């Protein structure tokens, strides 16, 4: 039995804004096993990034955000920790890499300084040892001539190298969980392939759990073992990669897969379209959230909210139509 390293239980993240409270994440539950890569897919505004940042509790809890539900790291609750204890977890047990490496790195420090900072804070290393370890990390993530690069500033590196440097910072303390929030979205395909290859390799070598957040289904198909599909703050479908891609059950997942042009095979006359667009958080529809865009929606869908239910094996889906068919 695979060991659950991180478990999110019924997480709700609510923001207080001038225009009222917005629930960006609404009852999300999933887990990450040791050594696996879990893909979280969805379009902008589906709450995938809010979920990941809630795991690290990065929002301002005093003023705007509040969390409900529970987040368990190796069985211990993260949400009940004090800020100081939380600080010890961030970057040490759970690390994160972001989409835009240039704006996530500090422009006035060398990348070496920024990697050493994590080592010195979390592991109390002395300067010399931290520097050695840093060069070792840079080598691990595939940066050529690491003993020179260690003294360079972020602007001196290319986009792909910056993303590698960011991965080095995240992995410096050998975290148990790595959250990668759209790590390759800003990169070219050839560089994207390099970075995804690196994440896969490091995942195997360091045996951590990886949560890969992306909007690109193709990236998920190639790297992940399990997938969670989100829509408007909820999980609509969950399952093993093979099952989910062979047989997408939820109309949203199905629509997403059919609306991307295929690289191989025959060219369709027109692409499949999901009608309409993602509604605003302040205008969440009653009943099933996908109902206004769903080709199969019935009156029941517009009135009641379906639950996320297991259909077969590991595959769960939030849809009345699919659940009734089974």
């Amino acid at each position, binding site marked *: 039995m695979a060991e659950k390293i991180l478990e999110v239980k019924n997480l709700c993240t609510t923001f207080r804004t001038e225009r009222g409270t917005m629930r960006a994440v609404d009852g999300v539950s999933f887990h990450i096993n040791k050594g696996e890569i879990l893909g979280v897919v969805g*379009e*902008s505004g589906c709450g995938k990034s809010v979920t990941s940042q809630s795991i690290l509790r990065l929002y301002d809890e005093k003023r705007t955000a509040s969390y409900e539900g529970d987040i368990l790291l190796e069985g211990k609750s993260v949400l009940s920790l004090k800020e100081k204890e939380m600080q010890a977890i961030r970057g040490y047990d759970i690390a994160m890499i972001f989409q835009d490496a240039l704006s996530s790195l500090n422009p006035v420090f060398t990348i070496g300084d920024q990697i050493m900072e994590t080592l010195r804070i979390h592991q109390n290393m002395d300067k010399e040892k931290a520097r050695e370890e840093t060069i070792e990390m840079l080598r691990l993530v595939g940066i*050529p001539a690491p003993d020179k690069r260690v003294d360079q500033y972020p602007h001196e590196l*290319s*986009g*792909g*190298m910056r993303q590698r440097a960011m991965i080095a910072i995240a992995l410096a303390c050998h975290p148990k969980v790595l959250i990668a929030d759209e790590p390759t979205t800003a990169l*070219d*395909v*050839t*560089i*994207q*392939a*390099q970075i*995804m*290859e690196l994440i896969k390799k490091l995942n195997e070598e360091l045996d951590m759990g990886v949560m890969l957040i992306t*909007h*690109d*289904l*193709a*990236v998920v*198909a*190639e790297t992940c073992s399990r997938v969670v599909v989100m829509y408007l703050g909820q999980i609509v479908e969950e399952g093993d*990669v*093979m099952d989910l*891609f*062979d047989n997408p059950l939820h109309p949203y997942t199905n*629509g*997403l*897969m059919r*609306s*991307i*042009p*295929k*690289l*191989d095979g025959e*060219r369709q006359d*027109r*692409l*499949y*379209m*999901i009608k309409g*667009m*993602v509604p605003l958080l302040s205008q969440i529809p009653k009943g099933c959230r996908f109902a206004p865009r769903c080709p199969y929606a019935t009156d029941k869908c517009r009135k009641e909210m379906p639950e996320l239910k297991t259909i077969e094996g590991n595959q769960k889906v939030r849809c009345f139509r699919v659940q009734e068919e089974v």
Partner: protein
Amino acid sequence: MEEKVLVANDVKKYFPIKQGIGKPDNYVKAVDGVSISIRKGETYGLVGESGCGKSTLGRTLIKLLEPTSGEIFINGKNIAELSEKEMRKMRKEVQMVFQDPFTSLNPRMKVGDILQEALLINHIGADKTERTEMALEIMAKVGLRKEHFYRYPHEFSGGQRQRVGLARALILNPSLVVCDEPVSALDVSIQSQIINLLLDMQEELGLTYIFIAHDMSVVKYISTRIGVMYLGHLMEEGPTDDLFSMPLHPYTQALLSAVPNPNPRIRKERIALEGDIPAPIDPPSGCVFHTRCPYAMPICKTMAPKKREVMPEHFVSCHLTDSDIENKAEIK
């Protein structure tokens, strides 16, 4: 003989780098000798990674940027020889749709005014009522509702803004539309709506597109012919199906192999490219790709390869011999 909407011969665009006053110290060679011709009614896909010069080429072709050298003919007229007045008339014929629907629309103008301004400048339409009617007509075509006429761009989502951008381009009834990454900023479900809209408009209005993008699957879907760019050079050009089924240039092969496939059962062999794209200020000698090419030979370092036709309509700029290329394409 097919009608050519646009013909470009050996177009170059260098951006000077200056430190202080006087002669430029150096040049960024964004586009370095590209020749293409676009036929009426086709969609020409221009692909390549960031910094390869595809956007600069797109803009230079329609004289949004002045070419450093080379000739460009639009509908048979050499645009370098046109006066400003004549060029302005010509601009009606060639329109552009931009990548970022957030910054390419004036935030202080209502959608209706954005559309009518294009008419006003070009003296189309007798009076305001007629122009309003024309604007409403094009809005209906691109799937915008009447009430959107009085709205500001910020009230729209990304997909709808892109519809406004397309309406603004199409209202002048152009023959050629340059689409610079029109769907890259959009979500998957919206992306397919806009791609279908582009195809519908092409069918209805008989448009010719130059479609610039970095997403290979989108380009494959929409284009009839494709040109692959690297560091300001056109490396390969061919009909879409040929180019995808038998990519000839080592760069095209590597680029295609890097594209992830949305089918977890297919595991592709990746051709890994070493390192990053060199800076266009000081491009490598000879073939610009030789620093990263897995098959680089001594001649690649010294001599730039010439464009040659390997199969009908399928051009490649590479020193590898035909048999070499075919072998490699087959192995792939």
